[in-house]
């Protein structure tokens, strides 16, 4: 098998008010099922390597993580090379019940927006209250990024991680770049 290639091959923009970086290949599994089911929770935690997140949250440790997508959906994250094994393991554990687990690693692109003005850059594109009192590390939000669906969370203060569809990776990168263009400081969250 060839080396996996992300949509933009690790594109980066550092000239603006925040740094925009395309993330490397990341393992991602969509899991749909009854999130209150004990067996499912156990299997999900094993696959994601972190504890179950609350509604609207995301638990992450490095490349491992679980995000709450909807009342019957989780996004499980892991190193790209492990995704097939983890998926097979998950599917085996859930074989008896009614659940659906599929690999979506290649269907997505991820971006990091970093810097003291990361909140401002995101606030230009997503209709979400990103005030530090309202949106904090650990929270997970599915919304739109300009004209495309996207999800994001903050692995840490001053960093947003974004997931969107792979086909619109170029658009996502370009709008983030425009939003972070030099001289575009808003001074809303920090003066």
């Amino acid at each position, binding site marked *: *098998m*060839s*080396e*996996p*290639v*992300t*949509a933009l091959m690790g594109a980066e923009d550092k000239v603006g008010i925040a740094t925009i970086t395309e993330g490397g*290949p990341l393992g991602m599994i*969509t899991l*749909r*099922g009854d999130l209150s089911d004990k067996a499912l929770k156990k299997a999900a935690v094993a696959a994601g390597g972190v504890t179950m997140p609350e509604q609207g949250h995301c638990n992450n440790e490095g490349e491992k993580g679980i995000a709450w997508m909807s009342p*019957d959906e989780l996004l499980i994250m892991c190193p*790209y090379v492990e995704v*097939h094994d983890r998926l097979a393991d998950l599917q085996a554990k859930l074989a008896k019940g*009614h*659940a*659906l687990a*599929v*690999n*979506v*690693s*290649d*269907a*997505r692109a991820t971006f990091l927006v970093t810097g003291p003005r990361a909140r*401002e850059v995101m*606030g*230009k*594109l*997503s*209709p*979400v*209250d*990103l*005030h530090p009192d*309202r949106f904090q590390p650990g929270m997970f939000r599915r919304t739109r990024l*300009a*004209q*495309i669906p996207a999800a994001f969370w903050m692995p840490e203060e001053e960093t947003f991680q974004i997931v969107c*569809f*792979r*086909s*619109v*990776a*170029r*658009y996502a990168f*370009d*709008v983030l770049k*425009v*939003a972070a*263009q*030099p*001289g*575009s*400081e*808003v001074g*809303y969250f920090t003066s």
Partner: protein
Amino acid sequence: MSTRLATGGRLLKTDKPLSFTFNGKHLRGYEGDTLASALLANDQMLMGRSFKYHRPRSVVASGAEEPNALVNLGSEGRFEPNQRATVTELFEGLEATSQNHWPSLEFDVGAINRHLSRFLPAGFYYKMFMYPRSFWKHIYEPFIRHSAGLGKAPKARDADTYEHFYAFCDVLIVGGGVAGLEAARTAGRSGARVILVEQTEHWGGRAPVDGGSIDGGSVEDHIARTLAELEGMENVTLRLRTMGAGVYDHGYALAYERLTDHQPDAKGPRHRLWRIRAGHIITATGAIERPLSFAGNDIPGVMLASALRDYVVNYGVSIGDRTVVVTNNDNAYLTAITLKKAGLDVPVILDARVLPEDIGLVEQAKALGIRVLMGHGISSVKGGKRVTGVAICAQAGEGAVLEEIACDAVAMSGGWSPVVHLWSHCGGKLRWDTDHGCFSPDLDSPPKGADGMGFVTPAGAASGMFALDDVLHDAHAAADGVVTSLDFKLPRDVEAPKAERREESPMMPVWMMPHGASVKLREKAWLDFQNDVKVSDVRLAAQEGFVSVEHAKRYTTLGMATDQGKLSNINGLATLAGALDADIPAVGTTTFRPPYTPISLASIAGEARAETFQPLRRTPLHDWHEANGAIWEPVGQWRRPYAFKRGLESTHDAVMREVKNVRENLGLLDASTLGKIIVKGPDAGKFLDMMYTNMMSTLKVGKCRYGLMCSENGFLIDDGVVARIDEDTWLCHTTTGGAESIHAHMEEWLQTEWWDWKVYVANVTEQYAQIAVVGPNARTALERLGGMDVSKEALGFMEWADGELGGFKVRIYRISFSGELSYEIAVDASHGAAFWNALLAVGNDLGVMPYGTEALHILRAEKGFIMIGDETDGTVIPQDLGLNWAISKKKDDYLGKRAQERSHMTEPTRWKLVGLETTDGSTLPDGAYAVGEGTNDNGQRNMIGRVTSTYHSPNLDRGIAMGLVLNGPDRMGEVLTFPGTNGKEYTAKIVDPVFYDKEGEKQNV
């Protein structure tokens, strides 16, 4: 003449001179100037021409309400017409030109209209351009188009960028005058999140110009103190140059921030549109002074009294040496006093009221030696391009001239109107304030939010408070009430500042000066300066039956100018009310709509321009296509290669080459855009039987089946191959356009109708690069890659298998949309490009060529395969297309089944799919209609069919087509006539739609 005073101005930095040009003339101003103040300082009174009569126009106001001083700014990519000089900050190198005149501002041919004004009354255009009807297209319309519009539209691409910003707050305060500042201070101290926006570049509004004292100190000190306190509050955001543009449902507001208009070389976006969601909005938008309606009130040099005062105090600019003040209220006396104190002459104050002269400002003015004439007004203003004097009359009479006084400026004040626009945008109601002769917010009828409660509160002058102490008190109380309703609490010691009270006499509404003005005077009394609407026009409209204010507005164009009636509205309403002998509140007001003042279209677009105008979807192979001659075809938001051009060949030749090569050698198609939806669960089979017209539950694991999807209307909406993955799991292919919509369609039925069915759905479209390997050499190519068995025995037609090919993890579907031996291979998207290259490498000596969507279309048309969107258009059912074989007779139900039983759907006269073969081998025009006997009621030939797909087939070397034809399948061999749009008539024979390899042997090898 207008000139700069030696005293300097409050806002002026006289140590920072700037140079700029107006109509190419080099002029000087200072930092702090507006373009208007700088032009006036250079005695450039004439700034433009009016819309209809091309009357000379100068500045009448000093702020956003300015109707006259519209100029073109900038050049090339920064050219912008219709910019108000009064709000344009001066900067080094600013270029401005005047507009709406020819050949020059000073001498304008269009001004002849002025002499024809008797013949250009209200509704002139409506009356004039009616008849004869034939004149419309060639005479009237070109004439109107030529004369319509003020400035010229920019031609160059906009050189700047723009952005949006989503902000959320508890309290948004619009207006940074003393009321807005006080509201912000109060709200800020409660701990609420506050945004305060001010449209100009200064805090404090006009209070510093009007003077007085607050808490024992100057107004300016108070502003500085309040500002310092606000700047120290982390929960308060302050923005200058940011206009509250509109208030919308549920606390939504737009604020328009001008970032680089005053520093065009600065980095960053030019405008930022703040999309604010506020818990509550306080409109501290102040008030606008009204003109008075007297003859000649539009002559350059006649100005709002407050504006005249502003130019002296803020910019050190005097409009003239001798200024006559004419008023119906006390406020204009401030102008007279200010002018006098600046050493300028005020020959007389004409006060329409009759009042005691020993109180308040009247007494002060008199003490300065200014002559005050009570009960008097202006009969007419003398002058052409400039005021030369006024004729004085009694306000009560018909305008008999009592005295003429020479002057070069007139300061007029008809009272003040609260800026109620933002209050009204979302439904706030108004009440008539008899004391002040204006509409004020009716606090009992605010705009209501999601919870049914009012979400806008006016404060200060915007709520009809005009005395400084009232303004401060009102703003404080408004903010207190708002934060309390939002569950915030004010600290105990917070109180409203106290301002010194002036003794004031009441204003007296004056809607016509003099009261009994003759027709001759009314014809020269302007209401709308920009659109040339006069008192006589509004009265004519009333006479002609336009009694509704909205009708009168459109008939006369009153208030339809770029200032949207900021100055003319109330005077116009009052004139209409007078003509109708009705009360002003009974006549009502026109609707206030956002934006408050014009905002740039580009700011509305925000980041959505150029490269980021809309999302383009790219497959994992996009870069390869781009580097290898792809001609792009937009398919929804996707870009798919239409064909791959080689060297100098034409696109048509490329398509022909690709089609032949697939039939003869080996073609590769990027099919990644096709939708792929996983459907899994114990009830998945049952569910798919409802989704598709045919039976999917009986499909065997490892097999594929072509399926049709209909809407509940019975119409065909999508098609594609379904593969059964395991006992519980199916993979459904959709059309390129259908991936998202069919996924949503499935979820909709599962969530809203059959929520107890155990089915999960996932859209995995973008997980895979899917490549169709097609042609006689397809198997050889795959065998060369090595890996899984792709023989006919191991992987038969309409089967699928997982495995490895050339080291790639793949899933292969043996399905064919071309009639050739074909494998559609899905590989994880991150390996797609590598896999594509591997296929090209092994296919090198097998004649491998990529092919595009046009070749795909021709290949499928040769085989008579339908295409969603070509053979279907939202009114076609599968039965129309001869697809009855794909409709299960065994199923009790599927989406669309009941609809397909409706009488119209079972009509034998529905047009049905057939093949069409031109008699001379030419290609039928796309969408052409077949004509039959006779004509319809409109005298058009009756239509009996239409072309749905048509191509030149290189394999058959002739035109082939499909079409829907009346009784088509029963008319095989008949020749139909298709008139083209080029005058040519085409004839085509009805044939079977399968043109190539009718037995389907090639795909089955």
